[in-house]
């Protein structure tokens, strides 16, 4: 806890308050009714209309901002102390997303209860997420690993929530954009509802302060000083979860405030939990109100979810924190692992070919609403123009895109020697999405043909940032993945902000962002087919070198391999394959993660074999996902990207658990 400023805490407190007051003033002048700051002050006593607006809309919003920001910050502070982890907070531990998922579920399935117990429901969700993170991240509670587990749990709950919202559009209508949290208040009911809980939580935190100070000395010291650590810890966890859950149940999930505020407080040189609680509350409020002010400066008279703004600021912060923690990481060699008793390669190929053909036949025989019967097959229904026009190119596009994603995953994982590497995990996907979105908004008139180039540029920017930041830790698996998730958060925030700012003009972009194999025809198939034809043979040549690389850089260069050239060309090839696929089907993730990993468990460590098996698996996965998406709600369709995410995120968690 190095102090940057050697100032008296009381002086800092006053300074913080001044800053908060200035921000609040600006905040109060923002809104669709135009009032200048001066008229706000001079007319408030005479203009009844102005009183209504300020007292009925703007002030509740401001106060809710104080409460939510403060509560999240204190929750973050406690979580950081409890897990001894500078990366902890309600959002990085997946607590916000879990609470929110439960709120959405209860709105859909128990609509009459939610009005009465929204807080209880979100508290259960919050606790469940916390338990999941603790259970899955192992006993050592390594900071970066815990944070990564939490972020993936966030991803998982978010994709569950996304799926529910798509399936139950009417019931969750009011919740849709709330997904990223907003401070909008229409009266004082939100404040009234949460005030008591939050004040209770803050009071407990304040009282617990000295005990937590002891806890930081280490469990044993605390015990020897006569403290019942179990009780203290349990109470502290309860308080943190309470604060997070109550916030989510009123304003929705807002990320990163709880991560940043305690750090700012430490940077200011505040010590001791009592004063840290007070300062964290203050800085949480400053951050959240500041983000809300900024959101409305960017898009006046529109509502950008404040959660997107905090992610935009908080993502880089997380990246920086991860970078700092990364310095401590020992530069151990990463290992990919792989089955030591591989299944017979020949048999495997036969089985997978069979499976692939089976899945393809199933997918091709399913039309908009019904299956082809055996008779249809024999009577040549397969040659009907519409099967040719729509079904076959779509299924084949899914097949090749799946293959491209899978092989690009093999390359990334091989080079980085990182089982968690994948386009979606490393933020390449959302970077590409953000690039495409910026292009659509900046150059609305330009042909969509150039969209892929924008996506490729965005993707390259993301991967460059991540690789540069994690250079020092030799691209440590878990650190790299955490940085990827941070970059991903920023990318999604940019996308969300641009969607609100550009309004309906980007409707086609939205479909694309969901990741969909909808309406892919022969033109798209031609592009992915040619890409596959060119890149797969090159990949097969390159992966041979990956086998050599797996001995370690020094041995590899001793064996005459140009290590850097190999690595860079493999990464470039992988990003190229991924970007082309993204520009065709949108932001479909996780295939590059799943396929190579399953392949390694089947055939061991030989990269040539892994690549071939991955090709099959990637194809099977995306064709199946596309089929499920078309089948479940026919004739309505679910984007295949969402189907993949529903399978992919739980697998990622499992994978993380296994990564040593």
């Amino acid at each position, binding site marked *: 806890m190095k102090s940057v400023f050697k100032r008296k805490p009381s002086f800092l407190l006053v300074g913080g308050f001044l800053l908060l007051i200035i921000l609040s003033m600006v905040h109060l002048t923002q809104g669709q009714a135009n009032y200048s700051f001066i008229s706000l002050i001079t007319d408030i006593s005479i203009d009844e209309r102005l009183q209504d607006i300020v007292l009925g*809309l703007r002030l509740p919003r401001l106060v809710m901002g104080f409460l939510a920001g403060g509560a999240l910050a204190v929750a973050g502070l406690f979580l950081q102390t409890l897990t001894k982890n500078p990366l902890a907070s309600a959002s990085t531990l997946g607590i916000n997303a879990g609470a929110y998922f439960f709120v959405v579920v209860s709105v859909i399935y128990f609509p009459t209860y939610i009005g009465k117990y929204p807080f209880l429901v979100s508290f259960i969700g919050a606790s469940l997420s916390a338990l999941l993170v603790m259970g899955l991240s192992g006993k050592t509670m390594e900071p970066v690993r815990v944070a990564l587990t939490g972020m993936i749990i966030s991803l998982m709950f978010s994709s569950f929530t996304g799926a529910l919202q798509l399936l139950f559009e009417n019931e969750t209508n009011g919740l849709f954009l709330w997904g990223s949290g907003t401070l909008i208040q229409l009266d004082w009911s939100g404040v009234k509802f949460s005030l008591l809980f939050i004040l209770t939580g803050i009071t407990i935190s304040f009282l617990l302060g000295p005990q937590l100070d002891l806890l930081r000395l280490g469990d044993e010291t605390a015990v020897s000083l006569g403290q019942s650590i179990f009780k203290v810890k349990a109470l502290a966890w309860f308080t943190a979860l309470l604060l997070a859950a109550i916030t989510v149940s009123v304003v929705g999930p807002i990320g990163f405030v709880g991560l940043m505020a305690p750090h700012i407080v430490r940077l200011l040189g505040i010590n001791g939990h009592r004063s840290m609680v007070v300062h964290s509350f203050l800085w949480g409020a400053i951050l959240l109100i500041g983000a809300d002010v900024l959101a409305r400066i960017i898009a006046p008279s529109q509502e950008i979810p404040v959660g997107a703004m905090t992610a935009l600021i908080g993502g880089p912060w997380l990246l920086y924190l991860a970078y700092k923690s990364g310095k401590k990481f020992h530069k151990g060699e990463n290992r990919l692992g792989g089955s030591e008793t591989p299944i017979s390669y020949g048999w495997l190929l036969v089985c997978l070919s069979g499976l692939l053909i089976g899945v393809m036949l199933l997918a091709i025989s399913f039309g908009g609403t019904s299956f082809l019967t055996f008779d249809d097959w024999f009577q040549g229904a397969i040659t009907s123009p*519409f099967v040719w*026009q729509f079904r*076959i190119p779509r299924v084949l596009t899914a097949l090749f895109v799946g293959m491209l994603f899978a092989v690009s995953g093999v390359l990334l994982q091989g080079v980085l020697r990182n089982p968690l590497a994948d386009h979606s995990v490393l933020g390449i996907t959302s970077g590409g999405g953000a690039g495409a979105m910026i292009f659509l908004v900046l150059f609305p008139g330009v042909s969509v043909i150039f969209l892929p180039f924008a996506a490729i540029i965005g993707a390259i920017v993301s991967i460059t940032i991540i690789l540069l930041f994690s250079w020092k830790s030799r691209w440590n698996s878990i650190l790299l993945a955490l940085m990827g998730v941070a970059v991903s958060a920023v990318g999604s925030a940019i996308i969300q902000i641009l969607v609100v700012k550009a309004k309906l003009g980007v409707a086609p972009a939205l479909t694309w962002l969901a990741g969909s194999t909808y309406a892919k025809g*022969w033109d798209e198939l031609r592009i992915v087919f040619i890409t596959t034809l060119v890149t797969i043979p090159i990949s097969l040549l390159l992966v041979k070198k990956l086998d050599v690389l797996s001995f370690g850089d020094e041995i590899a260069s001793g064996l005459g391999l140009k290590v850097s050239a190999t690595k860079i060309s493999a990464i470039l090839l992988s990003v190229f394959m991924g970007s082309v696929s993204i520009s065709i089907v949108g932001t479909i993730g996780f295939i590059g993660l799943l396929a190579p990993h399953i392949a390694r468990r089947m055939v061991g460590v030989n990269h040539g074999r892994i690549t071939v098996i991955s090709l099959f698996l990637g194809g099977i996965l995306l064709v199946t996902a596309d089929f499920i998406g078309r089948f479940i709600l026919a004739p309505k369709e679910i984007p295949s990207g969402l189907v993949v995410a529903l399978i992919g995120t739980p697998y990622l968690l499992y994978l993380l658990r296994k990564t040593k």
Partner: protein
Amino acid sequence: MKRLAIFSLIFALVLSLVACNSNNTQESSTNKESNVEPVTVKDAFGEVTFEKVPEKIVALEWVYVENLLALGIQPVGVADIEGYKAWVKVDAELSDDVVDVGTRQEPNLEAIAQLQPDLIIAPKFRHEAIKSDLEAIAPTLFFEPYPTDESISQYDEMITTFKTMAKVLRKDSEADTVLNKLNKKYEDAKDLIEQAELSTNEFILTQAFSSQQAPVLRVFTPNSMASVILEKIGLMNAYKPAKFEVYGFSQLNVEALPALEKSNFIYVVQDNDNIFENQLKDNAVWQNLEFVKEDRMYPLGGDAWLFGGPLSAFTVVDRVVNALEKK
């Protein structure tokens, strides 16, 4: 070499598929004997010629569904029938055997193809990207209900589209009858509203719903179709947007309403998402608005479709007159 063999197998398979594709796309459709002259009409992309009268029609947007019904034609396929029935109430029933072809955003191409239509009608702003797919199924007419050209009003576009559809379907006289009736309707409604002696003829028209749990009001601008209809019956739109709104409405929240409080508040809201009775009920700004206090609020019902065609216009006029007369 095993894997090479498998690759070549797959690629050969695909290549053969590509080759076959070009032979199969052309299929002669069963021509019905028809003695009509070919007609040529202009749609959003250019001129389209129809040799014969289309009979099996798929409509991918609700306004085209009701246009067909107005001309006495049942479509074979419609996007999101459930939504159509919830939102669009017109004086013509959609037959029960019409097939649902998926969502309006991503209609199911195969479901459309299975119906073997001879005409598809689609909005350009949604389906420009799948133009070639739709045209492979059947000749497709694209219309642009939200003209980016400020000089074309949405109302004129709606009338032109209706007439164009009638021309293609050889129902010109039916279209004229409907439009003449509609104009007569406007005249009658104008008289009724004059007799009602309202305190003001100014109005704002809004479609309201909740988003992020917060109330959102789409307030219609003078270039919108719904606003033109209301002005035709002697009312005046009080809302003037700061900039041109291509979709014909601005999204406002309750803060923007005090500036418009002197007008009549005409609104469309769904029963299960009534923001005025739920979210706004206890809001101080809302409670003190003049049109709330003086009870100048006129609901049109959730199924008055403000983005529809002539039949929806009938419904809107009826509902407005009813609501205004009651008070």
